[in-house]
């Protein structure tokens, strides 16, 4: 393999020389099978512990939140990468993690606007009192508090990164496995506009491997990296609402081209090809990819609540809708796993809160917690799922 680049050729030679010096096969079938048995035992123990936690705790979300126990045999051989369910839920001062365990945190749901769970176990909360981004250790201890002009966070598709805008309007990115956030360039916006961070992708931010996509809240207009900010070049104005787990598709809001101009269209955009590959202009907004990237949720919010949650396929055809019964509404929702939604529901007349899990056949939901008396859904969610 010659690449016509001396450094590349030198690296290729070096890798080959290093590798070629290794020729033996140290592992026997017994070695491999022995470790396989240990892995299997550990998985079973984890599953049993998770089930026990779900059964024993009354007002706590069961372990089946994530559905990850079904996927414990490692990555599937299918070529499409899949993100395991990684949703945590904050309720009554405790965060229930995907494995069913709970962590106490000094947070009141009334003060938390968004919750994030990094893959290293740290919990990140955007809070209104104090107006800050707060980072908690996996054990629930407060590790850091960052003052912010806008209490909002954005997670990467793999939950390895969380980004926010700091007091100087720069973008901060905290990476799983790294203690401190990395400051990227500010996003140039008119006046004193604080950038809205629409997406963050990449890895190894300290080495320049991360990209933040940001704008003014209506259009994603720029990218920021360690090297600086640049205008986003896309075929047409758009706002990113989510990035697929493999990074190959963006869920976007597009200006409406039809008869109801005040309503945006939703679309799926291929950034490599620079084209919109699917579009829906019929009330599909705030698209959010499922963990396997095969479906998307959408919902229209009003007064901090939504009436129903729609699920779309990758052609942006609606595959179903879930609506809680009676006078209940949905306060927050998220993907529990590739085939289930989590929804915090509340009765408008009695403020009785529940957390339910909804399969994509949209049958009767499974009640994971509640009903419990709670506060006004117009100002908070008593069950707050992570982003």
């Amino acid at each position, binding site marked *: 393999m010659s690449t016509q680049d001396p450094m590349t050729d*030198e690296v290729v030679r*070096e*890798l080959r020389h290093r590798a070629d010096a290794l*020729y033996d*096969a140290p592992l026997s*079938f017994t070695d491999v099978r022995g*470790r396989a048995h240990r892995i299997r035992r550990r998985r079973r123990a984890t599953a049993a512990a998770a089930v026990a936690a779900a059964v024993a705790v009354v007002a706590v979300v069961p372990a089946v939140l994530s559905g990850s126990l079904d996927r414990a045999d490692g990555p599937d051989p299918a070529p499409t990468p899949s993100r395991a369910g990684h949703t945590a839920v904050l309720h009554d001062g405790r965060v229930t993690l995907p494995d069913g365990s709970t962590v106490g945190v000094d947070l009141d749901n009334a003060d938390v606007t968004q919750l994030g769970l990094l893959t290293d176990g740290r919990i990140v909360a955007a809070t209104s009192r104090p107006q800050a981004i707060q980072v908690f250790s996996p054990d629930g201890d407060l590790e850091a508090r960052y003052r912010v002009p806008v209490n909002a966070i954005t997670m990467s598709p793999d939950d390895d990164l969380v980004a926010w805008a700091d007091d100087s309007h720069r973008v901060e990115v905290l990476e799983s496995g790294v203690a401190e956030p990395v400051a990227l360039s500010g996003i140039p916006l008119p006046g004193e506009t604080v950038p809205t961070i629409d997406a963050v992708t990449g890895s*190894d931010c300290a080495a320049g*491997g991360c990209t933040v996509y940001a704008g003014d809240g209506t259009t994603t207009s720029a990218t920021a990296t360690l090297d600086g900010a640049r205008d986003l070049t896309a075929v047409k104005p758009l706002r990113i609402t989510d990035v697929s787990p493999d990074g190959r598709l963006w869920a976007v809001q597009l200006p409406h081209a039809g008869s109801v101009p005040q309503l945006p269209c939703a679309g799926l955009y291929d950034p490599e090809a620079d084209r919109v590959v699917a579009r829906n202009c019929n009330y599909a907004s705030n698209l959010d990819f499922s963990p396997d990237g095969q479906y998307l949720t959408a919902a229209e919010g009003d007064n901090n609540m939504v009436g129903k949650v729609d699920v779309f396929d990758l052609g942006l055809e609606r595959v179903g809708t879930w609506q809680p019964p009676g006078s209940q509404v949905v306060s927050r929702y998220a993907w529990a796993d590739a085939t289930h939604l989590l929804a915090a529901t509340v009765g408008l007349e009695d403020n009785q809160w529940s957390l339910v899990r909804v399969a994509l056949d949209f049958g009767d939901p499974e009640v994971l917690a509640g009903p419990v008396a709670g506060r006004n859904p117009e100002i908070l969610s008593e069950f707050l799922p992570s982003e």
Partner: protein
Amino acid sequence: MQLTAQPGSGSEAVVSGRGAERDAEFTAYLAARQPALLRTAYLLTGDRHQAEDVLQTSLAKLYLAWDRVRDRESVDAYVRRIMVNENNSLWRRGWKRRERATDEVPEGAPVLDRHYDGRNDELWALVQTLPRKARAVLVLRYYEEMTEAETADVLGISVGTVKSQTSRALAALRERTPATLDPREEER
């Protein structure tokens, strides 16, 4: 075909003919592919002992999933993906060590196989300073000679990310390479 032990002898005594066949298939795969996979693991980790550990865990996970990997042509790609993930996970589990990419070449030489002639130790040490994911891109692209699309598939990232990570990794190596080691200097 299933060979069942006498009733009452307990479930552990149930011997599956399919299981024996499966183990034989896996053993054959292990014999054929282990040396090559160990080499890849070594390049990913930069350490012989860690490479064996990553390889053993990856093969164990493959063994558990063996029946689900229907397409035997894709087994290598499947194991490589597990190895990359496992290598990254090892790093994540130790995140409190606060490992970061650095411009400084770490002290001490990496563990070398006794048959290696020690050529170009400095460049190898520089490769070790790259972030793990960037190193994985280089290994898959330039050692495994995968296409950008194949590399993207194994790593679960986009082709664009493969391109940018490759470019950035090579740029970092160029920047960090002392003039005496820079192949461009030899050409002058």
